[in-house]
């Protein structure tokens, strides 16, 4: 009988268990979780990464900045009002101010300066004009072109004998154009006028140097010495407050609202939407109808109304009312989104599979629902931050948000807009801060959405 060679006779050893050998293919790369994968994708996105660095820098500026730059944002430097960054801050030490009698040192003829024009005072003297019954003195910051554009009237006399004036009105170191115009007996301009130019220099008295602690040893100073006034790296605002310190203080307010409000309303929206999605049916439709109502409210109108309803009392900053109003009005978008996600996930095959395998409710929520909605929530959160910052800035700008003197970027822009034509830096810096922050959060949001949503990645 021929034996079939391919059939081996079985031995007892063949019935031994196989042991630890696995038939699964060997993993070539280490397995990566969803979040590791997303982080990798985010890191590959240069714009998002740069935005992340900008946001970190912003946090440092906001929270560590005030520890380094220890200038009180409310402190007024009256010598330096509305100065641009990098402005000349030398001042010459002079004798303390003494009132001028209008006669001493008044040699010469015509319309003339007496002594040096300084920020302490500009002394002016003129001769009696032949046809004049009285005089009117003007100051201008531009060379006057005609009789009717002489500038700010400083003095109007009622006789033609007063021929001297000491200008001490809010002088800053720049060139002024003074004009003296003759008036007739009715007080009308006769057409006769004379103009002179005064280059005002900044001066400071020893007492002021001492009281401001500008130099170590103020008693050694001689008239004519130079001292440096306080340094303001980004200039000062219209009240002489340090811009850098105010930007830092404003950053705290803007970021406080910009981060906390989204955090709160997104949390509430998630809870609300998830509840509606889980319970479904009647409860769901009632809950979502209510959300629809809140969405239908005209947002800005209601923000303004809420500001009044919650009321900003005297001395309050208005930050908390704004926070509450933002939370009350902004949650429905998140709620809708999360509800949609939950409803979708409930119908997914893997959830049914988990149910069949006997997964508990808690397991479904913790392992499937939350991780699968977290990405969407994170993206919503990032995009909500710029919106909240915008809303704060907008409300503060129209004067219904953060109340002065509390600084916020919005209220600073509002103040800056008034002096925009002469001192643009007061508008530019807060505006720049808002723009950069919003830009960074928008780009980060874009990056996060691309990184977390595989569908978005393939289409774009």
């Amino acid at each position, binding site marked *: 009988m021929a034996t079939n060679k391919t059939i081996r006779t079985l031995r007892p050893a063949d019935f031994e268990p196989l042991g630890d050998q696995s038939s699964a293919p060997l993993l070539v790369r280490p397995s990566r979780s969803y979040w590791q994968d997303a982080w990798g994708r985010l890191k590959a996105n240069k714009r998002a990464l740069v935005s992340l660095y900008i946001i970190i820098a912003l946090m440092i500026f906001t929270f560590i900045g005030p520890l380094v730059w220890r200038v009180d944002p409310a402190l007024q430097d009256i010598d330096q009002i509305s100065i641009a960054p990098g402005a000349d801050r030398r001042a010459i030490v002079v004798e303390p101010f003494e009132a001028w009698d209008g006669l001493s040192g008044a040699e010469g003829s015509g319309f003339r300066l007496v002594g040096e024009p300084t920020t302490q005072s500009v002394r002016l003297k003129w001769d009696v004009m032949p046809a004049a019954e009285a005089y009117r003195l003007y100051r201008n910051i531009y060379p006057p072109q005609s009789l009717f554009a002489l500038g700010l009237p400083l003095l109007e006399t009622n006789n033609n004998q007063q021929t001297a004036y000491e200008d001490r009105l809010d002088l800053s170191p720049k060139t002024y154009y003074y004009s003296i115009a003759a008036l007739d007996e009715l007080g009308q301009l006769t057409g006769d006028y004379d103009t002179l130019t005064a280059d005002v220099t900044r001066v400071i008295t020893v007492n002021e140097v001492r009281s401001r602690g500008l130099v170590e040893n103020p008693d050694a100073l001689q008239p004519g010495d130079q001292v440096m006034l306080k340094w303001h790296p980004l200039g000062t605002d219209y009240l002489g407050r340090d811009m850098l310190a105010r930007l830092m203080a404003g950053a705290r307010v803007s970021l406080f609202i910009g981060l906390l409000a989204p955090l709160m309303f997104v949390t509430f929206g998630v809870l609300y939407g998830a509840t509606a999605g889980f319970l479904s049916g009647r409860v769901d439709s009632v809950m979502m109808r209510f959300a629809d109502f809140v969405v*239908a409210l005209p947002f800005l109108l209601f923000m*303004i109304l809420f500001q009044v*309803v919650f009321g900003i009392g005297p001395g309050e900053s208005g930050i908390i009312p704004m926070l509450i109003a933002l939370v009350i009005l902004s949650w429905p978008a998140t709620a809708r989104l999360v509800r949609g996600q939950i409803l979708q996930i409930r119908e997914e095959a893997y959830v049914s599979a988990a149910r069949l395998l006997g997964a508990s409710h808690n397991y479904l929520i913790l392992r499937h629902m939350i991780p699968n909605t977290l990405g969407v929530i994170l993206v919503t959160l990032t995009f909500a931050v710029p919106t909240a910052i915008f809303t704060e800035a907008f409300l503060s700008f129209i004067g219904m948000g953060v109340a002065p003197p509390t600084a916020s970027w919005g209220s600073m822009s509002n103040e800056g807009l008034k002096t925009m*034509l002469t001192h643009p830096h007061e508008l530019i810096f807060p505006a720049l801060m808002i723009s950069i922050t919003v830009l960074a959060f928008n780009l980060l949001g874009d990056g996060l959405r691309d990184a977390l949503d595989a569908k978005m990645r393939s289409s*774009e």
Partner: protein
Amino acid sequence: MWMYTFKRLIQGVITVWFIATATFFGMHNVPGDPLSGERAANETIRANLEARYGLDRPLIEQYGIFMRNMLRGDFGISYTQQNREVNDIIREHFPVSATLGVLAVLFAALGGILWGALTALYRNRLPDYIIMFLVILGISVPSFVFAGIGQLTLVNLNDALGFSVLPVAGWGTVAHMLLPALVLGLGTMAYMTRLMRSSMLEVMSSDYIRTAKAKGLSPTRIFTRHQLRNAVLPVITVLGPAIAAITTGGFVVELVFAIPGLGRYFVQAVQQLDYTVIMGTTVFYGSFLVFMVIVVDLVYGWIDPRVRLQ
């Protein structure tokens, strides 16, 4: 279709009622009232004024009166502006806001669709980068900054040229409207450009475009008949909320450019707690916005036959 429209209108009415009620009770719970201030010199005058305006009655009765008058379209007389009817205020100042808003929406929609289509066509080439950079800027810079910068540029331009190219502020002629409308529309334009770009890219990679190309249609015809038409749909849906945002968001622009629009009156009324003006403007704006959203939804169903309204 008619059933759907009817249902939406009913919903809209309920929403407006909700808005009116919420505003009414919220407003009356605010400390202070329009009569506190220099007008009420003493108790007697104050009591007389309260009686005249019906403020001495229980709140729920005031609410009833307000509702009855509102149904007749009467919002009463302003408390702070002597003898001026709220309806008159709306009638006089809303057209200004609306003109500005319509112009801004036009800028935003046309600009957004045009720029969005362009960036998609020039994807990952220089025009795309330039426009997308501007778009990011448009989204990130608040409108009051644009307004300020716009004014500054205009002042300098007018100075440099020696004559007035465009007026810097004020209202009246078409020239007054251009810059404010542009400033107001910029943010929305940027947003729409972004939306249009992604929707256009999606359309461009779809099967029917390949079919159209295979049929030998000219690129222009493909662009106008297939790509643009299909890509515009998502942009239209955001038009409703955009109109809402632009018309109510005009406050800042109205403030900066000294435009006598309704927004300015609303802010002023809120500050003075002028109940009737607040109620009038809120209900008016609310109904306007709700109506706009419904219209846009209906238009959407009409443009896109795939959307079945139910």
